[in-house]
């Protein structure tokens, strides 16, 4: 049914779509750029179908010989560099998530990115490029490249390949976040995303170099991920590598994951990344980019598992991020920012799960989260399409105008809040259960933080839902002083290409949880099918059994959050938000200002320490030592060059003389020199 060529095709078809759009359509056929949407969608659609087939092949066939040995790409002496596919359940799941969400997002984009929506009527806010269709081809070209890069990342069989695609994903997110590059905010956000994740990438790169440095003389090819995972812990046990080295490698990789997955303290780029087109946010937050960090930790799980110190750090960072981001989500006014903080928070859950050793549940949560988070983002885009703003203070009363958006958004919110029996409930419960079951201090701290975050999640999602869809309409972009760039107000349901993905995504947001990972045998599906498949080859201790009490407690907490949101934001609130704000004054301000982390980074670290400290020293060294050395060498080189040029007189006799003298000198060196 499926073979290695077809698996390669999953990656190459979107790449081909990018090449077609970027190298052919955009430069030469720009007036026909409306074909770029269908091209991109058809190619990602084929990839999606192939991914599904691959997924079922891997899932049903546990001795998956789907992919043969990696292909040798470059051999220099005993350095072998290969290119190949690492096909395991993790890869198969990621393929489905990436292609599935990307397909939905791109179909949605057909409606959302239509020139009439974001161009002609508000021309003065857009660059000349956006007046017509040109923007269309560029958009879909980037989207195809983004998807292809992420697919390359999850399929990579060796670390260099992985790193290349890791960087490509970063580049694409830069291009897409800054898609409306003529808007200063978008350009700044793109830059911020790139620089902040770069800090993480640096840690990852150092880890890779250190890994190579430590293992290049240990026999096997330690560039292969499978070799690293299988043999590196053994090397430590055999004493060939110190445990400290392994810890450093794992830590470096985790720094990379922190950057990409927007974990504390490198989370600052993610909320700003909302400046990109909304479908891009959906893609970044659900399937590509941010999941890459979680994927990385999962990919090298055996390494992390072997370094308990790092696992501890992962647990704490995960737990702290889960609650830290949730608190900021409580007070954000921009609907996309609420969703962004919720992503950061949910990624914290996944990290927490990985930290307590719950590999399967972490990926399970990544899987379910992808669907309802994509749904929510696309829903916020649909709302924006009608109101022209993202600021919830200027929305309201959209329930009757946009019924489908409302219902799907409600489903997404319930799923994210973790309400039984929606998808989010099952995966979140697994994570809480595993953290509780592990029982050591860090896990319990992580568990408690996550449990409080459950309450907050439920609260902020329903706050968003009520502010957006209930009450009276508060004017949209006409009232919002900052929102004119987003388009006009026309309160109707969004066009078909936008509604369709919402409806499709709502289905897995409801059923995917108990369908793929039921707690008891369910029809033909064995209990914990999904997590078992994932953990199949990892030899983990058996997972804890489903705990109804814990499930009820967490559900009750979530319901409490919803209740509080309802009490505060219904038509005639029992608790007015203003009162609450006054009561919680300083904390409210703290949350609203994102704990002043941005300020600390920009004013203190960048401003004080960097500009007024390190930069001055570097500047001095650069001017006086580096530049001088270079100038001296350059001066020597130039003068030496002129000296030889003197010989180049144009006279043939001279040339023949030089040849003869050259021969004599060589002979003399041989005769007298040795």
């Amino acid at each position: 049914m499926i073979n290695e060529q077809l698996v390669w095709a999953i990656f190459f078809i979107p790449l081909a779509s990018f090449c077609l759009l970027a190298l052919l359509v955009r430069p030469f056929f720009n007036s026909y750029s409306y074909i770029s949407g269908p091209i991109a969608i058809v190619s990602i659609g084929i990839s999606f179908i192939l991914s599904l087939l691959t997924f079922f092949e891997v899932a049903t066939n546990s001795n998956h010989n789907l992919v043969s040995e990696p292909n040798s790409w470059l051999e220099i002496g005993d350095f072998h560099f290969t290119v190949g596919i690492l096909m395991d359940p993790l890869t198969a799941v990621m393929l489905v998530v990436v292609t599935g969400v990307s397909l939905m997002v791109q179909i949605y984009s057909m409606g959302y990115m239509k020139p009439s929506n974001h161009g002609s009527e508000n021309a003065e806010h857009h660059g000349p490029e956006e007046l017509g269709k040109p923007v269309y081809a560029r958009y879909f070209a980037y989207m195809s490249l983004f998807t292809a890069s992420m697919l390359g990342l999850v399929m990579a069989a060796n670390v260099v390949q992985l790193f290349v695609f890791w960087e490509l994903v970063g580049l694409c997110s830069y291009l897409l976040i800054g898609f409306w590059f003529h808007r200063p905010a978008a350009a700044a956000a793109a830059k911020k995303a790139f620089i902040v994740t770069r800090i993480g990438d640096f840690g990852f790169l150092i880890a890779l170099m250190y890994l190579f440095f430590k293992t290049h003389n240990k026999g096997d090819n330690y560039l292969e991920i499978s070799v690293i995972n299988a043999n590196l812990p053994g090397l430590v046990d055999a004493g060939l590598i110190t445990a400290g080295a392994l810890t450093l490698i794992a830590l470096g990789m985790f720094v990379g994951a922190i950057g990409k997955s927007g974990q504390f303290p490198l989370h600052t780029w993610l909320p700003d990344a909302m400046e990109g087109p909304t479908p891009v946010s959906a893609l970044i937050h659900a399937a590509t980019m941010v999941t890459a960090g979680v994927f990385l930790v999962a990919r090298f799980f055996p390494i992390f598992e072997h370094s308990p110190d790092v696992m501890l750090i992962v647990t704490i960072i995960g737990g702290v991020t889960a609650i830290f981001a949730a608190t900021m989500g409580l007070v954000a006014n921009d609907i996309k920012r609420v969703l962004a903080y919720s992503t950061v928070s949910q990624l914290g859950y996944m990290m927490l799960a990985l930290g307590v050793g719950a590999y399967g549940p972490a990926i399970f949560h990544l899987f379910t989260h992808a669907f309802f988070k994509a749904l929510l983002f696309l829903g916020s885009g649909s709302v924006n399409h009608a109101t022209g703003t993202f600021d919830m203070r200027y929305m309201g009363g959209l329930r009757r105008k946009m019924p489908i958006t409302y219902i799907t958004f409600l489903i997404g919110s319930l799923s994210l809040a973790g309400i039984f029996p929606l998808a989010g409930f099952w995966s979140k419960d697994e994570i809480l259960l595993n953290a509780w079951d592990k029982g050591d201090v860090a896990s319990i701290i992580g568990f408690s933080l996550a449990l409080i975050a459950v309450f907050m999640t439920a609260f902020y999602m329903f706050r968003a839902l009520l502010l957006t869809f209930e009450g009276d309409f508060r004017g949209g972009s006409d009232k919002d002083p900052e929102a004119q760039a987003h388009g006009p107000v026309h309160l109707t349901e969004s066009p078909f290409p936008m509604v369709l993905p919402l409806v499709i995504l709502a289905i897995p947001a409801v059923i995917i949880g108990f369908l793929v990972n039921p707690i008891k045998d369910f029809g033909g599906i064995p209990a914990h099918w999904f997590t078992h498949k994932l953990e199949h080859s990892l030899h983990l201790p058996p997972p804890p059994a489903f705990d109804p009490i814990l499930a009820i407690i967490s559900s009750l907490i979530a319901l409490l959050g919803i209740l509080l949101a309802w009490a505060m934001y219904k038509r005639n609130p029992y608790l007015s938000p203003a009162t609450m704000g006054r009561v919680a004054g300083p904390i409210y301000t703290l949350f609203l200002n994102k704990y002043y982390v941005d300020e600390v980074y920009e004013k203190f670290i960048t401003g004080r320490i960097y500009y007024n400290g390190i930069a001055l020293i570097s500047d001095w060294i650069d001017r006086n030592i580096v530049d001088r050395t270079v100038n001296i060498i350059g001066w020597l080189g130039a003068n030496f060059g002129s000296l030889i040029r003197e010989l180049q007189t144009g006279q043939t006799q001279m040339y023949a003389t030089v040849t003869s003298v050259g021969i004599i000198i060589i002979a003399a060196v041989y005769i007298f020199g040795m």
Partner: protein
Amino acid sequence: MNYADIILIAPEISMALLASIIIIVDLFSSNKKLLAPLSLTGLLAPLCFCIMVRDNPSIGFNGTVKVDDFSVFFKYVIILATGLVILSSTTYAKRFDKHQGEYYSLILLSATGMMLLTSAIELITIYIALELTALPTAALAAFIREKKSAESGVKFLILSAVSSAVLLYGMVLIYGFTGTTYLSEIGTVIANHLSTSGQVTDNGILLFSVILITAGFGFKISAVPFQMWAPDVYEGAPTPITGFLSVASKAAGFAIILRILYTVFENETLSSDWASMMAVLSAISMSVGNLIAIKQNNIKRMLAYSTIAQAGYIMVGLAAMAGNTTLNTSGPVGILVYLAGYTFTNLAAFAVITAVSEDSGDDSIDSFAGLIKKSPTLAVIMTVSMISLIGIPPTIGFMAKIYLFGAAVETNLTWLAIVGVVNSVVSAYYYLRVVKTMFIDSPDEKHEIHPNLGVLSASVIAISGTVFFGFFPKPIIELARDAINTLIG
């Protein structure tokens, strides 16, 4: 001589026949437009024969000519270069008016000589092939009827004669020492001699003959100190011919050097006696070429110095060919990969130069100002080509350099690898200056350049090879590895 012998050199024969056909057609047909397409189509014949003879490696003509994977590899490269040069000459040659036939057929004849050179395994055959290569090139260099071109042709002729004389001296000495002109027999005699009496360097005749032969071929590959002719000749010659000289003639030169060194000397001799000479000449060539190139304002002259530097990089492979205990193949493999990649890269650059100088009328780097506005395609191709010449991924130039410098490190020539890398950085200065001129400087006059189909397709094909093999160097590396294995096998 029998039928099998004829088949053996069928590629060369068909190439020479093609040259004759072109002259005859030129004589009877007034439609000169036919000539280039005819030459290009005709190149398929030698190509097919190459593919054919590759399956039957053997020695013919009383042991003077050897067809093996090694020679066929170079024949591919030479045919490729010839094709690209003819393709980029299509409009350029119009200025030769009635003499277009001679132009194309001289290129083909020179290519015949180069192809024969890669197969020759006997000194006299080598010499004849070498002269067949050089004489048509001298004529081609002088083809434009103006002062510079004539000067270029004459200089090439004279200096080529000097180098031939040097080479002949070396050959005569070898013959006097060993009593044979066959490379393999020379190798046996030298091996016997060395087994009884120490090192090559102890024997004055042998030492001097090898130095002379190296000098003779050093001229071909334009290695310092035998490089003096290159800038003047390159500048004056017709632009496509400059490209031809820089690529094909260099490839043939390296082919015969590898052939002689590997056939005549054994590993210990190579490593103890010759590797260090090659290493020093390599380092000097790179540095001299790059340092002088920085100051050039004429793009052809700049690329002439660049080609000297490139010869230096390639010689890293010669220096690294002898390991301490076993033969190291990655050095020679690197040479072959580099030459193939250099063919693509440099001919892309020369195709663009041909198109631009056609438009501006001179060869100054300034005439590239604002090329990105005048012709984005040409500007992008030139940029990629420059990047490949520096050795930045994802181009074949990077892959080839990795290979060569890696080989140097493997054979304990780390210092040479460092010199090579430093030189690559230096070279970035003048290569990127061209890029800067094209993208940032504003042109004197704004008009679009529309390169004709020939030049355009030549540059596109060449640059596609540069990029494609930059991503997937494997096919070239495999071919090169087979070639080197048969050579030392």
